[in-house]
């Protein structure tokens, strides 16, 4: 058993990060997917995660969304434990009720959009605000329409997902996540399932978010050019660990580690 007394009940001090992974370990049976991961993301920071397939990138985001249980360590969001809760002065694994409240500060967009097919674009966006946050319908509608305008989907607000292209669905999915007013947004390969000609629609929305909002974002992508343009920091994952991280100019322009160099040249060769 891990000694939980080494983890503070909450983070305090002048520069508390928006997200902190502290010694986070995740394994499936004998397979260790995240190995003692330590990662901080500051408020308003855009951090991109790159790395070979199977290196644990998706798992990092899913742990933060609490879609996966944690096997070791603690994740903090905005200074408060996310995966754990305080009980008699120590951290214990969070129960379902605590998790539900804690994860409401996190929004996630998936590779395959996962819009609710029985609801229109607008209803998709209103569902969380009305059913989870308890907002009055009119207020939820205003908020959702504003966000659908922001992602350029207001004209299609009454369409069901089956009538929308992949790029359009992903933009609605971004609006749906934002309608919950998360502090942290997660993007897991949100352009990987899209036709090349519509990728720009979605990256354009993410660029806009970076430029105009002070959201903290964690993004997994295979689009190196995009990552280079918009990230404050890039983390290169290799076998469940951060092999190298730093500002995009440095990591892409002058990678220090051999594995990073190999990965980047392999990606370049494939392009």
């Amino acid at each position, binding site marked *: 058993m891990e000694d939980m007394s080494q983890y503070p009940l909450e983070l305090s001090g002048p520069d508390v990060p928006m997200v902190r992974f502290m010694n986070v370990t995740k394994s499936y049976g004998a397979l260790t997917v995240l190995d003692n991961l330590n990662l901080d993301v500051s408020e308003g920071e855009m951090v991109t995660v790159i790395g070979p397939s199977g290196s644990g990138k998706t798992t990092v985001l899913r742990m933060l969304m609490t879609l996966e249980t944690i096997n070791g360590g603690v994740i903090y969001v905005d200074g408060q434990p996310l995966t754990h809760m305080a009980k008699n002065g120590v951290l214990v694994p969070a129960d379902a009720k605590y998790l539900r409240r804690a994860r409401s500060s996190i929004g996630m967009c998936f590779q395959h959009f996962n819009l609710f097919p029985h609801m229109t674009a607008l209803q998709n966006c209103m569902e969380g605000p009305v*059913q989870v946050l308890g907002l009055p319908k009119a207020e939820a509608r205003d908020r959702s329409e504003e966000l659908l305008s922001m992602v350029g989907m207001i004209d299609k607000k009454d369409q*069901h997902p089956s009538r929308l292209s992949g790029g359009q669905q992903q933009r609605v*999915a971004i609006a749906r996540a934002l309608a919950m007013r998360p502090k942290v947004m997660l993007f897991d390969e949100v352009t990987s399932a899209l036709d090349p000609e519509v990728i720009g629609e979605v990256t354009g929305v993410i660029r806009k978010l970076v430029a105009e909002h002070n959201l903290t974002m964690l993004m997994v992508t295979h689009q190196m050019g995009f990552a280079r343009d918009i990230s404050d920091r890039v983390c290169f994952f290799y076998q469940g660990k951060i092999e190298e991280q730093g500002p995009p100019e440095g990591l892409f322009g002058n990678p220090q580690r051999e594995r990073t160099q190999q990965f980047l040249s392999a990606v370049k060769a494939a392009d």
Partner: protein
Amino acid sequence: MSYWEFLAQNAPRYLDGTLVTIAQFFLSAMLAILLALTAGLMKLSRNVAVRWTAGVYIEIFRGTSLLIQLYWIFFVLPLFGLTLDKFYAGFVAVGLNLGAYGAELVRGGIQSVPKGQWEAAYAISMSPAKRMYRIILPQALLNMLPPWGNLMIELLKATALVSLISVTDLMFEAKQINGSTFLSAQAFGTALIIYYILARLIVTPFMRWLERIMARKLGRA
């Protein structure tokens, strides 16, 4: 006596029987849907005892014959102090039996909803109950409707067995008419046609209509 004379003479009895059959059908369908939903959801519970309870119900009622279940409920339960009027015993037995089949449809329908839907609902912090009835069940329902259409036809046919505990349904009346007129072909032929009309001209079109409505709600029409 021509068939039309036969029909004119016995029409009131066929009508009475048909109304009882419709009532039996309707009540047992309601019960079957309720039980199917409950047991189907229980089958997916994380709690072993809950899953097991549903499993026992499904096994018992799928694994034995409806006729024996009907006799048990009507003739045996009174020995344990639970007496049901024959009308109640009839639709309760049919509902319990078909509900067990429906439970498997509900379970399968829910499991056929992609994992991404559960995760998207989870990611907006929905409670498990809301996630189930607002996100998962509506989609599961659409997947389930075609097999439920078949089940409803099976249910209608199964209600004929209640005549064996003297519920005065369509089958019961047909047997009575046969007994008094000795015109077996006419007596049972008429019942056959009425069952067919109920199944193909009422139940099936209704289920198709429901499928269309649901498909439209899901934007798939």
